[in-house]
């Protein structure tokens, strides 16, 4: 259970508060994706964990050891950078060997040519050779060991960066958007490989990304960050189906979740533009009703809407519509067979949704309890 432990870390750059007391635990063997829009502080948090930046307040534990004041090289972490950060003058094998050589050899043994002749160097070099070979094989780099980074494709460079990270078996992996420079098909393939590497290593992995699909597909838990604070940390399923904050609900999911301004009346009924939607709220006041695109369906009765356009995606299609009374754009995800019965652009139709899957958020964006068709109201 000795993984990464981040305790109320704060950081300020000039007058900008980048991190506002972030706490997060990543257990050994666990894969946590830190996701958020650019500028939310996720990369800064990762650099603080690595030791490249210093936190203004808070503490970092790695492998059960307080590393807050330690240099990056002493923290037993490996990091994969967005730009890969390979040493361009070294071959693939030499790149992978760097973290080993810096740890296992002393200054004299590292000297070119004569260093290998010193006592102990031959054995150490032999062991390192084996480790480099093993890491290279795990990533299918065997044929490329003598190449320089400039002679490699983006995907191959990415693998070299990963091999350099796994070669010394660290307690924690830090990955800073490692897939964002790859093309789409390679990205999907490399996702699985990174997860496999993580499983085999048994290390704690903190994975920073702005791509929610990466976070949802790869991680054991997803931490959603915005404005320098964590909004919710939960499994991908819970983050998607049970978001506790409107910002989490709107950030996760593509297309974006539909949001409609709503209101709980004195009688407890939730209405959208005066139209009851079959939900009861706890106390009277304004609300936001959020419904995933796949939970909305066209129907004969329900919320009145106007169809705008249809997008065919292959496995599904998107119907763009408009709720006239609140001037809100809506998106419906429908099975492709539904195409024949869809309302024509410009035509009025009605919308229905499964009330058990609707989400209600209070005026501050906090999730509030829903009771569907029960007459009872409750806060969660």
């Amino acid at each position: 259970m000795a993984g990464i432990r981040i305790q109320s870390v704060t950081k300020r750059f000039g007058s900008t508060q980048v991190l506002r007391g972030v706490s997060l635990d990543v257990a050994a063997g666990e894969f946590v994706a830190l996701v958020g829009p650019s500028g939310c502080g996720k990369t800064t948090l990762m650099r603080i964990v690595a030791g490249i930046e210093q936190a203004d307040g808070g503490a970092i534990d790695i492998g059960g050891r307080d590393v807050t004041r330690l240099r990056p090289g002493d923290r037993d972490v490996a990091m994969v950078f967005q730009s890969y950060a390979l040493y361009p003058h070294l071959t693939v094998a030499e790149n992978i060997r760097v973290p080993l050589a810096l740890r296992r050899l002393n200054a004299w043994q590292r000297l070119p040519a004569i260093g290998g002749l010193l006592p102990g160097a031959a054995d150490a070099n032999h062991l390192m050779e084996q480790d480099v070979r093993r890491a290279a094989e795990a990533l299918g780099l065997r044929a490329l060991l003598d190449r320089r980074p400039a002679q490699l494709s983006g995907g191959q460079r990415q693998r070299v960066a990963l091999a350099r990270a796994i070669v010394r078996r660290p307690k924690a992996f830090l990955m800073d958007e490692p897939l964002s420079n790859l093309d789409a098909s390679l990205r999907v393939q490399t996702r699985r490989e990174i997860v496999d590497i993580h499983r085999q290593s048994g290390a704690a992995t903190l994975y920073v990304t702005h791509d929610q699909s990466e976070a949802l597909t790869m991680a054991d838990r997803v931490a959603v960050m915005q404005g320098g604070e964590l909004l919710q940390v939960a499994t991908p399923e819970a983050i998607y189906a049970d978001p506790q904050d409107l910002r989490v609900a709107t950030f996760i999911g593509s297309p974006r979740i539909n949001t409609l301004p709503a209101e709980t009346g004195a009688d407890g009924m939730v209405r959208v533009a005066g139209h009851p939607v079959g939900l009861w709220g706890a106390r009277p006041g304004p609300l936001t009703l959020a419904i995933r695109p796949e939970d909305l369906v066209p129907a004969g009765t329900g919320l009145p809407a106007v169809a705008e356009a249809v997008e065919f995606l292959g496995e599904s299609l998107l119907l763009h519509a408009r709720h006239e009374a609140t001037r809100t754009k809506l998106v419906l995800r429908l099975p492709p067979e539904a195409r024949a019965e869809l309302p024509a652009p410009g035509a009025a139709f009605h919308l229905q949704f499964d009330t058990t899957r609707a989400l209600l958020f209070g005026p501050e964006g906090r999730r509030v309890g829903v009771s569907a068709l029960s007459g009872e109201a409750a806060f969660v």
Partner: protein
Amino acid sequence: MSDAALTQALPRPARLALGETATAWLLSAPAIIAYLLMLLLPTLATIALAFTDFELGATGFAWIGLDNFAEMLSDRGFMTSLRNTIIYVGLVTPGSIAGALALALLIEAGTRGRTFFRAVFFLPVVSLTVAMAAAWQYLLHPSIGPLNAMLRVAGLGAPEWLSSSSTVLLSLAAIGIWENLGFNLVLFLAGLTAIPRELYAAAEVDGARHAWQRFRLVTWPMLGPTTLFVLTITMIRAVRVFDTVAVLTQGGPNKASQVLLYTMYEEGFTYFRLGYSAAITLVFLAIVLAMMWLQTKVLDKRVHYG
């Protein structure tokens, strides 16, 4: 309606092509003429002169083949100046490169005063060498110079910096280092800025704890192209040394500071032996070209990690 008029006004394709060619020649004519008059012709004239015994004011000249070059081999003055130039380049090049790199690293590592220090060290580059040489003459003066005044206070004796044959070349080299340092410094600072910060972060995470380890792993290899350029430029600038010698020592004492270009100048404009002087110029040209060849053909492959 204006379409028809436009079509008629346009020249036919053949005329258009001819007009374009003529315009191209016309536009590049100033550059071509300048190149021919200022560079190509003088160079060709020098090459031609190098194989004659032409002297300024003489009524005629004779083609003497390689006699000028043969004379150089037995000319004590020329051989001394060649040897002195090599020593001078051998001192100034490593001195000004190592010094500039060290200063650039210090300035880059510091948080404040970057612009100030850059300006201070660049000053010698933009100032007139002849004027600066006069200042050095005063600084290094055996009896009234501040340097010797300090040495006397420290009880270290008072060397005759510029008038003793054992120290004159060293003193000139020191001035040469001071002169080239700022230029190299600015180049190194530019090279340092171009190194991706993430490489340093990666080196730290990989376990490079000491500044020296990060220098060896990141800075030095990434500065390769810059260092090579600085090396070539500095060597060429050092081979060209002339003004400090002309102002401070005139090649003396006893030819101890005689350098290639000063010998060329003396032969050509003191003794008016333009043929011989041209031959020395050719030797100088050959050295510079050899350095440039060395850069492009040999070293370039080792600093670009393609």
